[in-house]
């Protein structure tokens, strides 16, 4: 699976978003904007006493962000993209920082005797917001890095390491803030109102959000990219409500609305990511199942193919044994019959050649140089094949009528094309074996059309039953008792490999007609 790294179609980070996902994303952002506009007139309204809701909000934020980060860490363990690792870390940091943020929030945990410095909450909020924004920006910038830049080490250690680092960082930061509170920048005037210095934070955040949005917009590839854009849109709305519409006053309607919208949106995004992960997983399971089925049917096909090959080789081998036995018997006579023994041995030689031809034929079938194509005149190839089959058709009282039009320049593998034509002729001859009430006739026609050549081989045999017609190109399907059932399958795959088509239709009034098309080249290409 190493070579397929970064190309899994089943990961959030690689699967492309479809139309309904895009629509849902746009819908969520639109709904949030509407909600923002609705709450805007009341944004500055103060809601004193609502500190009591802070722990609940923080707990929810912690949970959503930890779950999202867990999902992203899991994604990283497969995808090995550093961008995703950084994003996961950003979520983890933001989630963990929600704890000291809530604990230090003025007037929330006073019953526990916590009355920390005014500035601590603000510093944590700044770290949380900017830290997360930077992780998204880093993701957007790094997400398209090439496979070979990705770490190949075990991802487990990296994940544990980063989690430990973030946890330590959070603890150290919190501790440092608590111990050195008097040195902190003055972000707050009092427990509710911010100092002018604070305005740097939302402004910087908006800048980073917009940059990240722009980067993601231009490089939108995956489902994850799409939903991160939704997250950024939500964060923009949240910061607008909190810091601008809400007048940057804590516990105002705007302040709460921004947080709650942000939380709701983060939850929706998490749910969407989870459900899409599950959907992609289901897709993966289905694809593995169908791959397994395909492999099984390939194995069955290979078994059947080996059986046919074994048959084709066993036949002459058995004749050789029988002929050799006969030869020995003739020599064992009281008066050795040398003449008879000689002709038995001659048949052994003939059978040996036949076995070799079978083996050569199979080797040709699987040869790698079958892609070697040369420009030829298809009509001359057809004539050559017909010449070779002349004796056979005469013996079986089949007359072949040809109507080959001019020169048909095609670029093909001549050996393969001979096999196809030979196969079609042989099938037509076989189809005529049971015809006794009319002359057995095969018509071979060819002509060139628009950019392609058309060859038809028609017989006036019994035709192909309509319920069998769709199966005759299947491997190992044969209407002949001794047929390998490979001829038409190979013929069709050869023709399609050459960019042509092979199909069958009824011949009127009797028999079947096989049609074959191939792309045509300019006449001058023909190699004489």
């Amino acid at each position, binding site marked *: 699976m190493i070579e397929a790294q970064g190309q899994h179609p089943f990961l959030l980070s690689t699967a492309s978003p479809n139309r309904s996902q895009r629509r849902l994303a746009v819908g969520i952002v639109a709904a949030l904007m509407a909600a923002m506009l609705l709450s805007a007139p009341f944004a500055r309204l103060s809601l004193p006493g609502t500190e009591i809701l802070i722990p609940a909000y923080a707990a929810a934020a912690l949970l959503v962000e930890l779950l999202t980060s867990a999902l992203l860490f899991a994604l990283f363990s497969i995808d090995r993209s550093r961008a995703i690792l950084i994003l996961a870390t950003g979520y983890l940091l933001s989630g963990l920082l929600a704890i000291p943020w809530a604990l230090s929030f003025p007037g929330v945990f006073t019953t526990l005797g916590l009355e920390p410095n005014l500035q601590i909450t603000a510093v944590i909020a700044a770290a949380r917001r900017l830290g997360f924004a930077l992780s998204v920006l880093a993701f957007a910038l790094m997400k398209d890095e090439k496979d070979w830049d990705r770490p190949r080490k075990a991802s487990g250690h990296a994940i544990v390491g980063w989690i430990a680092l973030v946890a330590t960082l959070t603890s150290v930061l919190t501790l440092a803030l608590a111990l050195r509170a008097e040195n902190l920048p003055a972000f707050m005037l009092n427990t509710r109102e911010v100092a002018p210095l604070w305005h740097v934070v939302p402004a910087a955040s908006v800048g980073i959000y917009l940059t990240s949005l722009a980067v993601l917009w231009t490089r939108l590839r995956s489902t994850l990219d799409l939903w991160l854009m939704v997250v950024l849109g939500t964060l923009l709305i949240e910061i607008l409500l909190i810091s601008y519409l809400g007048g940057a006053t804590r516990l105002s309607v705007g302040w709460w609305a921004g947080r709650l919208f942000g939380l709701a949106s983060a939850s929706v995004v998490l749910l969407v990511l989870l459900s899409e992960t599950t959907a992609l997983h289901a897709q993966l399971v289905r694809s593995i199942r169908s791959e397994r089925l395909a492999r099984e049917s390939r194995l069955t096909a290979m078994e059947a193919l080996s059986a046919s090959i074994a*048959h084709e080789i*066993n*036949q*002459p*081998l*058995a*004749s*050789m*044994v*029988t*002929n050799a*036995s*006969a*030869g*020995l*018997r*003739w020599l*064992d*006579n*009281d008066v050795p*019959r040398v003449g*008879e023994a000689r*002709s*038995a041995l001659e*048949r052994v030689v*003939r*059978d040996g050649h*036949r076995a070799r031809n079978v083996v050569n034929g199979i080797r040709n079938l699987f040869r790698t140089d079958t892609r070697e194509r040369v420009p030829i005149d298809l009509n001359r190839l057809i004539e050559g094949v017909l010449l070779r089959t002349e004796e056979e058709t005469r013996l079986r009282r089949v007359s072949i009528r040809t109507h080959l039009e001019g020169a048909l320049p095609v670029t093909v593998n001549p050996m393969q094309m001979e096999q196809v034509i030979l196969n079609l002729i042989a099938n037509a001859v*076989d189809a005529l*074996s*049971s015809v006794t009430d009319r002359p057995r006739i095969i018509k071979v026609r060819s002509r060139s059309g628009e950019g392609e050549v058309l060859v038809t081989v028609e017989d006036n045999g019994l035709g192909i039953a309509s319920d069998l017609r769709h199966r005759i190109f299947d491997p190992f399907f044969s209407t*002949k*008792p*001794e047929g390998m059932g490979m001829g038409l399958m190979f013929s069709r795959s050869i023709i399609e490999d050459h960019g042509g088509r092979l199909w069958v239709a009824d011949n009127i009034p009797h028999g079947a007609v096989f049609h074959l098309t191939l792309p045509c080249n300019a006449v001058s290409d023909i190699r004489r």
Partner: protein
Amino acid sequence: MIFRGFIRSQMVGDLLIAIVDDDESARDATVDLVKALGFAAAGFDSAAALLRSEDLHKMDCLITDVRMPGMGGFELHRDLAASGFTIPTILMTAYPEDRIRPQALGEGIKCYIAKPLEADELLSCILSAVDHAEGPVGKGSQRR
């Protein structure tokens, strides 16, 4: 020699054996082996060719392949039996199946043998087939 001392040795050369196989080289080989074993033999490329033959009634024994286009060996045997004309029949096949053998013997087939043919096995098959045949053996067959 193989046939020396055998009761029927003086009649062996008079027996005419039909060989039906669609594969030309296999048919030629079998015909020659049967001749080398001392019988007269005639080859046919299909069941239909044998059934059409004027010499059908002169045959003392039939050796036929099982799998052939059109009519197979089994059907040929049944066809002959149904027309009331029974020739001692030997089935030969490149794909012997143990579950087919009892069925074949049950239908009155004398022997069910595997290809490639072993000379001794084929000989004993022919001899036991014609020996068990009903009626006089070698009815009016012609020397070839």
